[in-house]
């Protein structure tokens, strides 16, 4: 049988992310997938030459249009380590609250897109309707829906008052109830299982060998989550990484679904333990040296490396995003699949290509 090569992306009706895959197919079956990237490179890392290190907080927020707050938090943590300062406890709790709110809305966005990729439009609409509540919390507390811009080197810039705590708690009850109402549909529905069970399998060994990150790794049975490092206030909060062992699309969806509920719980814990005190310490001085920071994004581990040279501009900024780590696993998930399953499996790693290319 003759094989042919089919270009998939960078523009694709199902996949909103600009990734190009050269699919070698025989009939309808994928034999090989070769990814090609580089369609949305923005050169954000290079901006360190034009913006000083405090202004870079607003730049790194724009690396990702979904988990902006977590990027800024990671950058600030790296810089705080270099300046040898420690964010006050209240700031650390507030960082947890906003970062977990970002995880909730990111996972809900993804679960919706995933349903949409399977052609399950009504589920997609339901999930995004729930997500809107979280966006409202973000806007009411931080002023913006996505790019909340709450981080500053040394702490946070915004506070959450008593009324807002009550409002968040009230909304989270609804979010939790509505998400739970969809659990049967998302995890046990015949259509969903038919499109996801046993599709795009990544074994535990492959996941470790290819360096998968985040829910893609945890869906293959590896209990690794950067929040276990205990950055910000995670050291005081009670949580266990969500793990599934199937390694298929369904397992990755299940991990994200359960993490959504887990994040609701983490926000509650952080609100309950929110200490009083300052929001930020002053970040003075022009640092020198190198620092790295790692935090858990909705898509997995993000790593920031910064190098400073004693001026107000950094020498080098390097960002390793989780999607970058999850593209090699994609090349072993796709072979053997039917063409129609390709978008669903590509989506199952939750690709964020514009972060990957920065």
């Amino acid at each position, binding site marked *: 049988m003759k094989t042919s090569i089919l270009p998939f992306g960078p523009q694709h009706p199902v996949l909103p992310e600009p990734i190009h895959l050269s699919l070698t197919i025989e009939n309808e079956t994928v034999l090989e997938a070769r990814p090609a990237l580089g369609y949305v490179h923005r050169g954000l890392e290079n901006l360190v030459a034009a*913006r000083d290190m*405090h*202004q*870079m*907080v*607003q*730049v790194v927020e724009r690396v990702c249009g979904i988990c902006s707050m977590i990027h800024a938090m990671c950058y600030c943590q790296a810089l705080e380590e270099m300046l040898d300062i420690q964010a006050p406890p209240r700031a650390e709790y507030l960082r947890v609250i906003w970062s977990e709110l970002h995880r909730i809305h990111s996972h809900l966005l993804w679960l919706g897109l995933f349903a949409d990729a399977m052609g399950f439009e*009504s*589920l997609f609409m*339901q999930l995004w*309707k729930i997500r*809107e509540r979280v966006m*409202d919390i973000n*806007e*009411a*507390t*931080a*002023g*913006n829906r996505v*790019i909340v*811009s709450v981080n500053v080197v040394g702490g946070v*810039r*915004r506070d959450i008052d008593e009324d807002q705590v009550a409002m968040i708690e009230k909304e989270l009850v609804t979010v939790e109830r509505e998400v739970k*109402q*969809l659990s*049967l*549909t998302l995890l*046990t*529905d*015949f*259509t969903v299982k038919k499109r996801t069970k046993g599709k795009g399998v990544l074994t535990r060994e492959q996941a470790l060998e290819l360096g998968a990150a985040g829910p893609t790794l945890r869906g293959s049975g590896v209990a690794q989550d950067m929040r276990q490092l205990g950055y910000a206030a995670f050291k005081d909060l009670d949580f266990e990484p969500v793990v599934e062992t199937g390694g298929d699309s369904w397992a990755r969806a299940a991990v994200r679904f359960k993490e959504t509920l887990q994040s609701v719980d983490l926000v509650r814990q952080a609100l309950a333990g929110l200490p009083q005190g300052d929001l930020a310490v002053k970040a003075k001085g022009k640092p020198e040296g190198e620092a790295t920071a790692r935090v858990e994004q909705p898509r997995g581990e993000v790593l920031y490396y910064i190098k400073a040279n004693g001026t107000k501009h950094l020498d080098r900024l390097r960002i390793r995003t989780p999607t970058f780590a999850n593209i090699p696993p994609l090349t072993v998930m796709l072979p053997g699949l039917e063409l129609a399953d390709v978008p669903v499996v590509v989506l199952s790693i939750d690709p964020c290509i514009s972060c990957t290319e920065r």
Partner: protein
Amino acid sequence: MPFMLPSILRNVFSGPATRPYPANPRQPFADARGELVNDPETCIFCSICAKKCPSQCLAVDKELGTWEWDPFACVYCGVCAEACPTKSLRQTNVRRAVARDKQSVAVQGQPKPKKSP
């Protein structure tokens, strides 16, 4: 699909989740980040806001007493308003309206001529 039935029925009997937008826009949240307002009476044209702005969309001239803001380059982060030493610069909670043409906002205050040596 059968598991969706309760949600579908709930949706049938509850009101719409969306708002008839242009006719009935949502009121902004009290803490929303909107347009900047600068008071020429209290502004001392020190340029701190312009130096801190990450998108470099502010231009201040002390000698002419002018403060200029480009709302279309601004990312509404609020860094400038927090840095303003006289609190003359404020961030309101009203978002910039859509516009056909890009225009900047200029504020004219008292020119502060250079002190002669």
